[in-house]
């Protein structure tokens, strides 16, 4: 079951890397939230009920429901096609696959007894593909999505470690992602009004 969920997560990453329409991100972000919930439910059965409720809130409520709806709300009525991405279509698909292979090779080479190769592969792939999306796309919404993909990778890493952080650190992480997304969403709206575009190339007024 765990293998199936992790492979599904990696497949969502491949799709995310290839997407050219902003609105196509939302169902995939929701799917990642659900998959992360299933994974943490299967892996962290020995943790306290409170911790499980927190994880449920973070994955299902926040990542699977709130984030896609929030992103949909702030991008309402916009042209949804990306512009000027240097790597497009199937080339970005190939690059995503290459990043996953690199992640797998790195994980496999670690030879760590306590390191679960499949978790580590999925986590590092998520971080690498998140960074790739941030660099490859100039739309501000995709930057926000890239941040969330990276955070999902970090979340996978923390599941792999068995949730050893104290309860309030976990709560702080949740609060942090929530406020970061909220702040970025609010600023995104203001930027949209001021610059009348969401292309990041227009954010170059601050120069030496």
């Amino acid at each position, binding site marked *: 079951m765990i293998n199936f969920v992790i492979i599904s997560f990696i497949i969502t990453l491949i799709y995310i890397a290839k997407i050219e329409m902003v609105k196509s991100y939302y169902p995939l972000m929701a799917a990642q939230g659900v998959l992360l919930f299933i994974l943490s439910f299967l892996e962290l059965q020995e943790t306290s009920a409170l911790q499980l409720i927190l994880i449920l809130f973070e994955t299902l409520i926040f990542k699977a429901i709130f984030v896609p709806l929030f992103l949909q709300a702030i991008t309402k009525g916009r042209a949804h096609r990306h512009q000027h991405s240097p790597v497009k279509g199937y080339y970005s698909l190939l690059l995503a696959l290459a990043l996953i292979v690199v992640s797998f090779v790195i994980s496999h080479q670690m030879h760590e007894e306590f390191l679960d190769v499949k978790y580590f592969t999925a986590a590092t792939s998520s*971080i690498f593909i998140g960074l790739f999306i*941030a660099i490859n796309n100039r739309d501000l919404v995709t930057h926000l999505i890239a941040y969330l993909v990276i*955070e999902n990778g970090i979340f996978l890493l923390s599941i792999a470690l068995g949730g*050893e*952080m104290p309860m309030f*650190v976990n709560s702080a*992480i949740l609060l942090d992602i929530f406020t970061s997304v909220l702040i970025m969403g609010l600023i995104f709206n203001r930027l949209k009004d*001021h610059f009348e575009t969401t292309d990041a190339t227009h954010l170059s007024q601050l120069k*030496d």
Partner: protein
Amino acid sequence: MITVVMAVITYFVRHRVLTHVMVLTYLAGLGFIAFNLYEHLGEPLGEYFYCDRLGFIFLIILIIVSVLSGIHYITFVEYRNVPREAMALHNAGTIFFTGAITGVLFAQHFGVLWTAMEATTLGASILIYHNRNQHSLEATWKYVFIASIGIAIAFAGILFLGLAAHKIGHVDFTFAAIKSEASRLNPVWLKATFLLVLTGFSVKMSLVPLFTVDIDAKDASPSLVGATLSSVLMNAGFIAMIRFYDAFSLTSILPWMNNVLLITGMLSLVLSASYLLKVRNIKRLFAYSSMEHASLVTIAFSCGGIGYLAAILHLIMHSFAKASLFLQVSQMHRIYNSKWDESIGSYLRINPLGGLVLLLGFLSIIAMPPSGMLITELMMFQALVAKSYWWLAAVILVLVLVIIYGLAVRLLGILFIKKPGAQINMKGATPWESVLQLVLIVMVFYIGLFRPEFIVNNIQKALEVLPL
């Protein structure tokens, strides 16, 4: 918790006087706590915090700089006619930011340290957003985006540390526990942790690789926010880095960590020197100067021995000097309504006391006598020579001379040369507002020249756990 409640109340109290009273009351409370903490130096403060000596010194600096910024903000609000909502948000952000920095200074658990550091990002973003124009929006977006990714990278580093600790059955993330077990942990994971944490926190320290958003933030925010970012936030970044360095200092990766710090410091110094030669915006000029000093602190720290003391003393003096200069820029902006050097001139004649602050601040940051930073920079060179890094000392000396030239060309021009493009508003020249900045500069001279026993003893006691 008190911080969050105070911040929320401050946001909703939009009275023009009460909102400032809230901030100053919070800072007075923090001062009272600091006064009481003095008796408990070296003792734990609950499960996740510790009354650390270095943290205590930087708490004092935090209070001093925050009080001065708070006082300047009162004038700033009146002069700029800041809307009540923006003023309330700024003051609430100041309280939240100050509380978060205090958390970083006294945390004794890596997870808690990370949490507090992330909170500083959110607090700083509120402060940067203050002006609500295109520049501040751009800077805030970049800051939140890059700093959040940086913080996420740092968290990945902490998770790697957890992975290493998991292997020996040790799961306690407190500094003391990790330090005592560090030599049993896999050095590869420790190296990965240090590298990721240094990368993630480089936004706060104004170092390579993520320094650019910090420079933009200081440029686009009010100068009094620049004063805070250049002093207390930078200190918090260094304190966080030192916690990891200290925890791993008894392992085989110490020379590797020193090399990483040296390379980071050198790259940052080269970049700051090259930018300082071309920059014409006075706020960016001081931001790049902060980057230069952060580089020198990193290089000094990487040398160990006397370099540790030099690094911490340098950080303390830089906090006062840079806060003073940024606060003075706020006043200059009122006179010239510009931050570009071609529109600012004859400042010493127009505002003699303000000009004196700028002149003495300039002497401080270029480490000219009687600046105390001369002493710490000499100590840094002493540490480099002790490590037989002669060639590196020579390169650093050349780069520092280039930086002095870059700063002198701009700042002496602002002080003494009449600029035809300058539009002067004499109403903005209020000499009494420069008195507090002058006090800060005098402190830089005093600390460097007389090295007060209280400061030096506490730094030495805090650093005696580090290997020579």
